[in-house]
């Protein structure tokens, strides 16, 4: 239990990657890495695809990235209607991982275009929920 704290409105409560929340609490964004082969996963996953018996460890990401694409949502699911309209983005982080995340309202929308450099930062919602966004 507990993972429903992730996101602006979480749907999934039970998972093996709960430790992500402790990193977010500390203001850090973390990936998982296979202790045997070193393959790293973000979003984090609990098992290595290549070494299924191996343990994983957590590594902190620097969050530097550039925007691939984005949209502004005007027609939202019920849990998000109070915040409408809002921006969603897809970015590529410096280590090659891609991340789907909201774009912080602090970003000037007129400056937003594919290729723009943005940083993935931890954000906290009003219900004590934790997530990350691009700013």
């Amino acid at each position, binding site marked *: 239990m507990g993972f429903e704290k992730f*996101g602006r409105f979480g749907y999934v409560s039970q998972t093996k990657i709960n430790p992500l929340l402790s990193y977010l609490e500390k203001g850090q964004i973390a990936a998982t890495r296979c202790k045997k082969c070193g393959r790293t996963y973000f979003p984090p996953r609990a098992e290595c695809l290549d070494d299924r018996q191996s343990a994983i460890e957590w590594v902190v990401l620097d969050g530097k990235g550039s925007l691939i694409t984005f949209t502004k949502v005007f027609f939202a699911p019920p849990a998000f209607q109070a915040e409408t309209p809002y921006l969603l983005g897809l970015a590529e982080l410096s280590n090659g991982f*891609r991340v789907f995340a909201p774009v912080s309202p602090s970003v000037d929308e007129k400056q937003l275009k*594919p290729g723009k450099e943005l940083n993935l930062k931890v954000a906290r919602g009003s219900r004590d929920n934790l997530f990350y966004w691009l700013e």
Partner: protein
Amino acid sequence: MGRVGIVGVGHSKFGKRNDASLRELAFEAYGAALDDADMDSSNIDSSVICSATHYDKQRSPAGVVAEYLGLNPQPTFNVEAACASSAVGLRTAWALVSSRLHDVMTVVGVQKMTELSSEEIQELMGRAGDVMWESPFGTTMPAYYAMYATAHMARFGTTEEQMALVPVKNRKYGSKNPNAMFQKPITAEEVLKSRPVASPLKLFDCCANADGAACLIIANAEKARKLTDRPVWVAGLGLASSPMSLAGRKGPMTSFEVTKNAAMSAYQMARVSPNDIDVAEVHDSFSITEILNYEDLRFAKPGGGTRLLEKGETELGGKIPVNIDGGLISKGHPVGATGASQLFALTKQLRGEAGSTQVDGAKIGLAQNIGGIGMYSAVTILKA
């Protein structure tokens, strides 16, 4: 493997069908397909019921649909692949018929969407993506496709005016389709002025939720020839998958790898190339989707989809008429029925029964059906 032929097709009226339940919609299409094939249920060995079952009030709808169609005690089951359910249903039935486990089967695509409250629909829409990593940020079906549109615009200079040509074209043909939900043409100005949904997509760039059903009856070659003198053959079946999460996908987000992969399999199996296709049905869930599909199916080069539209090459009389039954944008999109609806339109074309929208001498047709936000794509090639 033996050949498999389509021997009967049926289609209900699509739209807000508050006069009919799920099972009744299914019967409209199934009954029409039996009439079309001039047969009765005793000829059918097994049924595949295709729907995105989360929309249905009825749990495990194959049970009640097969009962209502008079298809007990023959085997029946549900196939679900979101918006591509009935294209995947045909693939499933094809395998059962070509393996000789069954001789004659029916594939029924059916969906009842408008019975849900708009609150329920919006809640479902919010879970269309990866519920662990993407839905918690407020994703919607249009938002995902809008992100492809933004990337295509930035890379190729595609404009909202060019995207508006898709609904203008499709609604023009929808006005000739009595089964379509929207039968009134639309202007580019109306599209451009409609309210924003997820930028750059606006209301009239988007297809609508609908109720409806479409049905195919298929048979092995021997039976097909006995049952009809005009079978349409299933020549190529391509299906591929892609990561459901957007972040799990590679490339510049200006094309669907999943469609390219499905197309490659289908062209190879049918031994045809994109130039051989006489008429096509592609998944126009949104204006941008049709443009990407032209490119992913290799009707146009990457970035060349808008040019094809501007030159009128996908109109009736053009090089490759696309969605001249009106597409999802005119017909509405009863998720589970859409794939079978596309194959209904192609079967009519290949038999020369498409009336005022008939493509002269059409011999080879292609249908392309995307599931959900692009995690599945099916390409089906039919030959007269």
